[in-house]
C-alpha cells in the first residue's frame, strides 16, 4: 500500500498550495455571488444559481485538475524530488498510481466543498423568497457526478503529458484536448459539410481518438429537469473508466522506460 503514502503526500502538497485555496475561495464567491445575478430574473432565480454554480464547479475543477495535474510528475523531475522517492522500494507504476489517486482525492474534496457551497446558496435563495429551504434540486448531484468523472479523465490526460514533457507544454496540450474534446462532435458535423473528404476523415479520426467530453456535460438537462436514463450514466461511466485506464497504462509505459 505504498501508493497510499504517495497519494496522501500529493493531497498534502495540494492542501498546502496557496493557488488551490485561492481558486476554491474564488469559486465559492462566484457561486454565492450568483444570488445577485439571479435577482435580475423573474421566477427563475434557482435555475440561474444552479446554472452558474455548476458552471463554476466545472470551470474551477478543470483549472485545478490541469494546473495540479500537469505538474504531478514533471515537477518531481524538475525539482529532483523524484530521485529520493524512486530509490526507495516502490515501483514506478505504484508511484504513478499514488500521484493520480492523490489528485483525485484533492479534486473530490474540492468538488464536494463547491457543491455544498452551491446547495447553501440555493437554500439561502429559497429562504429569502420565503420558500421551504429543503426544497432544493437533488438531481444536481447527477451533474456534479459527471463533472467529477470529467475531472478524473482530464487529470489522467494531464498525468500522461506530465510523464514526458514540461509543465508548460503539458498544460497547453491538456487544455487543447479539453477544448477539442468539447467541440469534437461539432467538428464532425462541420467535416460532413466540407467538400474535401480527407478533412472529414481527419475530423472523424479526432472525434474517435480524443475523449468526447461533451458526454459528461449534462448541466443543461439537470437544471431544466430533463430526465436522463440511468443507462446513460452507466455507459458514460464505463467510457470514462476505459479511457482513463488506457491513459494511465500509456503513462505507466512511458514512465517505466524513462531514465532520471
Amino acid at each position, binding site marked *: *500500500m*505504498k501508493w*497510499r*503514502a*504517495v497519494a496522501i*503526500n500529493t493531497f*498534502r*502538497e495540494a492542501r*498546502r*498550495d496557496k493557488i488551490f485555496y485561492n481558486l476554491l475561495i474564488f469559486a465559492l464567491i462566484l457561486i454565492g455571488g450568483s444570488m445577485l445575478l439571479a435577482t435580475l430574473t423573474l421566477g427563475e432565480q434557482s435555475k440561474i444559481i444552479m446554472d452558474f454554480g455548476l458552471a463554476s464547479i466545472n470551470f474551477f475543477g478543470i483549472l485545478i485538475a490541469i494546473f495540479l495535474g500537469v505538474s504531478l510528475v514533471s515537477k518531481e523531475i524538475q*525539482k*529532483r*524530488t523524484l*530521485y*529520493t*522517492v*524512486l*530509490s*526507495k*522500494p*516502490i*515501483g514506478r507504476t505504484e508511484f504513478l498510481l499514488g500521484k493520480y489517486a492523490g489528485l483525485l482525492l484533492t479534486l473530490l474534496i474540492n468538488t464536494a466543498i463547491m457543491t455544498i457551497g452551491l446547495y447553501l446558496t440555493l437554500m439561502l435563495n429559497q429562504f429569502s423568497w420565503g420558500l421551504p429551504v429543503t426544497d432544493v434540486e437533488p438531481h444536481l448531484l447527477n451533474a456534479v457526478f459527471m463533472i467529477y468523472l470529467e475531472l478524473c479523465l482530464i487529470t489522467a490526460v494531464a498525468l500522461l503529458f506530465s510523464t514526458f514533457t514540461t509543465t508548460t507544454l503539458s498544460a497547453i496540450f491538456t487544455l487543447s484536448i479539453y477544448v477539442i474534446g468539447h467541440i469534437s462532435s461539432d467538428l464532425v458535423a462541420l467535416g460532413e459539410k466540407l467538400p474535401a473528404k480527407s478533412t472529414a476523415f481527419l475530423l472523424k479520426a479526432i472525434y474517435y481518438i480524443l475523449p468526447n467530453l461533451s458526454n459528461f456535460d449534462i448541466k443543461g438537462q439537470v437544471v431544466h429537469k430533463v430526465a436522463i436514463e440511468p443507462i446513460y450514466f452507466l455507459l458514460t461511466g464505463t467510457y470514462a473508466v476505459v479511457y482513463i485506464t488506457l491513459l494511465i497504462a500509456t503513462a505507466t509505459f512511458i514512465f517505466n522506460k524513462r*531514465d*532520471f
Partner: protein
Amino acid sequence: MEIIKTAGLTKEYPSGLFQKGPRALDQLDLAVSAGEVFGFLGPNGAGKTTTIKILVGLMRQTSGTAQLFGQDGNNTEARSKIGFLAESSHFYEYLTASEILGFYGNLFSLSKSLIKERTITLLKQVGLESSGHLQLRKFSKGMLQRIGIAQALINDPELVILDEPMSGLDPIGRKEMRELILSLKTEGKTIFFSSHIMHDVEMICDRVGILAQGKLLAVGKIDEITQGKETLEESFIRIVQGEQVI
C-alpha cells in the same frame, strides 16, 4: 560477501532518436564488500552519478549488470536494504522534517511506532531534534543535507549510497559528515560514496575506485593507490591525466 557488484556495466546516452551517444560508462567492473567504506572518485562527467543512478534503479544500463545484494537495482526488494542520498538532492519543501521522515518510512512499509522511534533517533543523530516541526523551505543548505542523511537512514539500511555528500558543506559540516560515515561503519554498514574532496576520502575510506571517462582506472586500498609516496590527490591527478591503470 559482495554487496555491490557490477560487471561490464555500460551506459550510452542517446544523442538522437535512434543514435547512440557517448559512453558515460564503459565496461565497469566493480565490487564492494560488506562493511567497507568505499570512495568513488573521478573528475566531473566521469560517470560516478550515472553508476549510482543505475545502482539505485533511477536509470537503466545499456549493457552489463549492476547488482545490490545479488539482485538487480530495479528490484524493489534490493532497494529495501539501501539508504540513498542524491547529489544536491531536493525534498518536498512543504513537509516538516518529521513528516518527510514519516513519508519515506511509509515507502519502506515501516510500522507507525517504528517510524516515530526512528524519526526521534535520526533527528537527534543529525542534530535537528529541535527542528522536526519546521517545514523544509525554512532549512539552510546544511540542514537540508542533514535531513537528507536522516531520510537515507530511516530504514536502518545495510548499504548507504551517498552521491557527493560533502558538496556545498562548510568545513564543520564536512567534519560532521565524516564522523557520521565513520559511526555508520562502526554499526557494520557498508558505505559507498562519490566525492571530489580527496582529503575527506583519505581520512575515512577503506578502499577507493578512480573513474574517468566512464572507465575504472584504479581500485584498491589508499596505500596501494598512493604507493606510499604521494598524497591521494597527487595519485588521482597522475592516474586521471595519464589514464594509468592500476
